């Protein structure tokens, strides 16, 4: 696969430059836009694989930009957020962003998150069959089985759904709400949902070597969960 391209939408020169240099290794071309409007135009004409979007744009609300891009763009969207509370991050993920990093971010973390999204973009097009592998975990979607190091794991139907949704979205931060609606059919919302975090804890105890230092399911505090990015 040819090296992918990226677009950075940010009103701050310095941040654009920093992000562009951080992405230089993994992308053949990184273009820049200084406003939301210019960013949407550039996304339409250049069709980048990854878009890094700053929330603090002077001319547009980040959520609107995200929603607009999502209407016609398949690019992975990584949001840069400086906000103090998590509600905006959740709203952005619900509006179609794939992941976020909080300012002041660590360059290594930014690179890792972008790479994870890139892997998603490059694998989602090609059909990889019904087996999803990640580390020691192997999920067979048609047989509805999950094995760890070759051994079959016993999951409740809810736990199976939870792991399935997380694994097929690996590398992407899933908000609590996205997980609710994916795991529980719309009508049965309510009681069951409040125990989402308990189900995650139970799943971790089955798949993680040490549930306190998870290797597969990461917690994004206040936002949701993210499954490790699988090679």
């Amino acid at each position: 696969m040819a090296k992918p391209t990226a677009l950075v939408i940010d009103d701050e020169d310095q941040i654009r430059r920093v992000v562009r240099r951080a992405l230089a290794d993994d992308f053949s071309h990184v273009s820049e836009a200084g406003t939301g409007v210019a960013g949407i135009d550039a996304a339409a004409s250049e069709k980048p694989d990854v878009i890094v979007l700053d929330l603090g744009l002077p001319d547009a609300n980040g959520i609107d930009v995200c929603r607009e891009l999502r209407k016609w763009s398949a690019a992975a969207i990584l949001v840069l957020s400086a906000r103090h509370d998590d509600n905006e991050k959740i709203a952005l993920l619900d509006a179609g962003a794939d992941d976020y990093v909080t300012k002041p971010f660590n360059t290594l973390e930014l690179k890792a998150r972008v790479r994870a999204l890139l892997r998603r973009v490059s694998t989602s097009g090609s059909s990889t069959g019904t087996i999803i592998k990640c580390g020691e975990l192997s999920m067979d979607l048609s047989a509805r089985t999950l094995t760890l190091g070759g051994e079959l794991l016993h999951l409740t139907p809810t736990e199976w759904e939870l792991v399935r949704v997380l694994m097929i979205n690996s590398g992407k931060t899933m908000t609590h709400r996205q997980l609710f609606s994916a795991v529980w059919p719309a009508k049965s919302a309510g009681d069951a949902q409040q125990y989402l975090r308990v189900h995650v804890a139970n799943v971790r105890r089955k798949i993680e070597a040490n549930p306190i230092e998870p290797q597969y399911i990461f917690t994004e505090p206040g936002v949701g969960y993210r499954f490790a990015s699988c090679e």
Partner: protein
Amino acid sequence: MRIRSRAAQWVIAFALLALVTGALLPFRSHLGGAHVTLALLLVVLAVSAWGGRLLGMSVALAAFLIFDWLFLPPFNTLLVRNPLDWLVLVVFLITSLVAAQLLYRARAERAAVERAEASREADRMKDSLVASLSHDLRTPLTTIKALAHELQSVGDERTFIIEEQADRLNRIVNDLLDAARLDQGNLPLDVQVNAADDLLGAVVQHVAGRPDRHRLIVSLNDPASLSLGRFDFVHSLRIMANLVDNALKYSPVDAQVEVSAGVENGMLVLRVADRGPGISADEKERVFTPFYRSAKRTDSGGSAGLGLSISRGLAEAQLGTLISVDRKGGGTTFELRLPAVETDAIG
């Protein structure tokens, strides 16, 4: 129109009453009781709406006397000839008093609504100020951190210090913003059933990548079963991160910091135990006051002295407690207690 002086209000109100009375007086023998009472009632209503309850009631009483004295035959005496006129008189008095009272209440309610609106507006302004402040401060910090990181590839050790100091500034900004929100009492709370596993995992994540991360020993009191609590995950993580940062900072560099979690007597108890200098009895409570600095700790430690007071505020906001106790063998243990949830309650 806004008349500042109360005395001026009274003068104007009674002048209005006198004016209406004077206008009606020449025709009193041709006027029925309804004409007069309605005209006077109008004055009472206008004055009540504008001048408040006391003035409204006084004018109502005066209007009652004027009506009786000047307009009910026999004129110029308080005597009433026709028994039916008594009824008119009493109904007039009651109507004007009730109207004055109702108008007063309506005004008071409107004033309360306006005050609430103004205070909501002030909160909105504060929120947007906090939001823009956090954006304006973090954007340059992001640039500083990222440039320092780029320069690390050149091999200059000082760039690590730049990055570290940028992180320290960021922590101070966070503390100040959190303290401001706690102070305003408009801290958003998202209380959910959470597992101790998850919170401890986030604590481990918090120190990941730091050179002193191996000093942190994290464990569950009862690893075989889930320990659950009803709390706000983000706030609780903030408390634990504060406690762990302090413990690592104030313990000898070769000493371990032990973090544990378990359910005891209906509470989920999280402990952070250090081998630091300890906290004397008279300081046990004082360490939780804002900007407090222990005499034993001469350096500022890179914080604004708000960490523990914010932590206690966050603990209490979610019906928990945070205290410090002496640790056996030296040092301090901070205990965070949050409402526990029975594992059996989960279907």
